[in-house]
């Protein structure tokens, strides 16, 4: 079967004349400084307890040769986004030029259907009180820094990454760095079996780190501190 036949009408990747922004995360370069997370928080005044991007880690190896394996996470800006399909009021939508998945805050009813639909946990509910931003009690998510990209800037997390672990660009442009990286490295996306056609590509990500972890299931107390802090601050 040719590549053309496998492209569904909803896909924007590989479609001539259309831009399709994507991010490549080179996990070999990530040092876990969390600067991306801080830059994102600063850019959007994201409240405590929730994040548009976050960097979980897994300790691998055996003493003395152990290391932390980081897996920066964010919205995957899927081509076939389940959150877009599931929003009853079209508050979540896909921007055709670029493939951004964005949120209309004024329309969101807060049914959390999009949160339930997202296989990547990329969506979260904003709390009812925020210090500087009036947008509250609606679902929020990473926007691939739409406002920056439309001004020819890269997203805040990419801008600040000191290891150049995050690279952003138009994957439909054969001259872009992201299309070069995807073409010349073996990459993987998170949960490809869900058919969402995600557009965050990982280089060097270990399959063990991108799957559900058994340890996580066995250690609920590990998260208890965060869980209780979250429940204290979020009356939802």
């Amino acid at each position: 079967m040719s590549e053309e036949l496998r492209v569904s009408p909803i896909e924007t990747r590989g479609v001539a004349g259309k831009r399709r922004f994507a991010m490549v995360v080179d996990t070999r370069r990530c040092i876990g400084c969390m600067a991306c997370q801080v830059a994102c928080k600063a850019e959007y005044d994201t409240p405590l307890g929730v994040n548009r991007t976050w960097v979980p880690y897994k300790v691998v190896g055996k003493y003395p040769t152990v290391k932390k394996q980081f897996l920066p996470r964010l919205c995957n800006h899927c081509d076939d986004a389940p959150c877009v399909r599931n929003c009853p009021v079209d508050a979540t939508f896909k921007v055709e030029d670029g493939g951004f998945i964005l949120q209309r805050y004024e329309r969101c009813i807060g049914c959390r259907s999009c949160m339930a639909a997202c296989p990547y946990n990329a969506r979260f509910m904003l709390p009812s009180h925020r210090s500087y931003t009036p947008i509250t009690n609606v679902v929020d998510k990473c926007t691939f820094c739409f406002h920056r990209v439309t001004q020819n800037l890269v997203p805040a997390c990419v801008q600040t990454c000191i290891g150049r672990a995050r690279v952003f660009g138009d994957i439909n442009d054969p001259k872009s760095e992201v299309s070069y990286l995807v073409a010349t490295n073996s990459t993987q996306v998170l949960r490809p079996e869900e058919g969402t056609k995600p557009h965050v590509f990982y280089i060097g990500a270990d399959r063990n780190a991108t799957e559900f972890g058994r340890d996580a299931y066995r250690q609920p107390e590990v998260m208890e501190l965060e869980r209780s802090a979250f429940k204290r601050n979020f009356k939802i």
Partner: protein
Amino acid sequence: MGDYVWFHDVSWHASYAVYFFVIGILAGLSFMSYGSWITPALRPLREKAAYGSIALLALGGVLLIADLSQPLRFLNILNPGYLNFSSPLAWGALNIVAFGICSVLYILALRKGDETRGKLLALVTALLALGLPVYTGFDLTVHQSRPVWNSPIIPVLFVAMAIASGSAVGSLLAMGNEEAQKVLRQYMLWSAGAVAVMLVSVMGTTNYGGSAAELTFMIMTTGTMGLLFIGVGFLAGSVAPAVLLFAPMGKSQAVLMVSALLILVGGAALRYVLLMAPQQLQTLF
């Protein structure tokens, strides 16, 4: 050891499970009310079931709206300019509104004693009531990343649970009426049996699924969730009533009442676990 898993909250909380429970009962009651036009034995239930159904609809509506983080924007879901028909929630909202309107018209027809219009409206209301557990089931089924939810059996299971819960409440409402209890016993017996069979099927396919399904199975069958799902929902709420009602003593009033209560308690537990367990796994990703 040493893994740092980010904490994510579940999307839908327990109030949604209560909503599922209420919607199930009201749909079941609506079936009973329509059934009274077909089966004369159920005649004493006609008005009671219709009134009960609309009272529960009001409760369910309040629960659903209160669960939104922007409750006053619930009207957005009825705005034709906003509606997204690829979402089961949009269909569900229309279904609930249509059901509410038909229920009111049906009650008005009952009060007037208009038999012809009453029977027709009972049929339309019952068909719309069928859409309620079906839409709530689809609401879960469309989430392809959630084991258990993403199964074609969930809407069917919700319909069976609605019949079971509705006939259980009907049985409590028609206490002392032997003719009605005879029919309701059959409804409870076969719907509880169908729920038990479907639960075995759900457990089997989940246990034999991929890594996410396997972990969901572990969550559903161990600890508090296991107690609720296997103990209360499956054994006490589905198998036990089916066995009790099938046994020779199943025709006695006491057994019918016990079975009805078990079905209701089990139905509530099942809806809670079916909603929460697949979400619990997702919080760990």
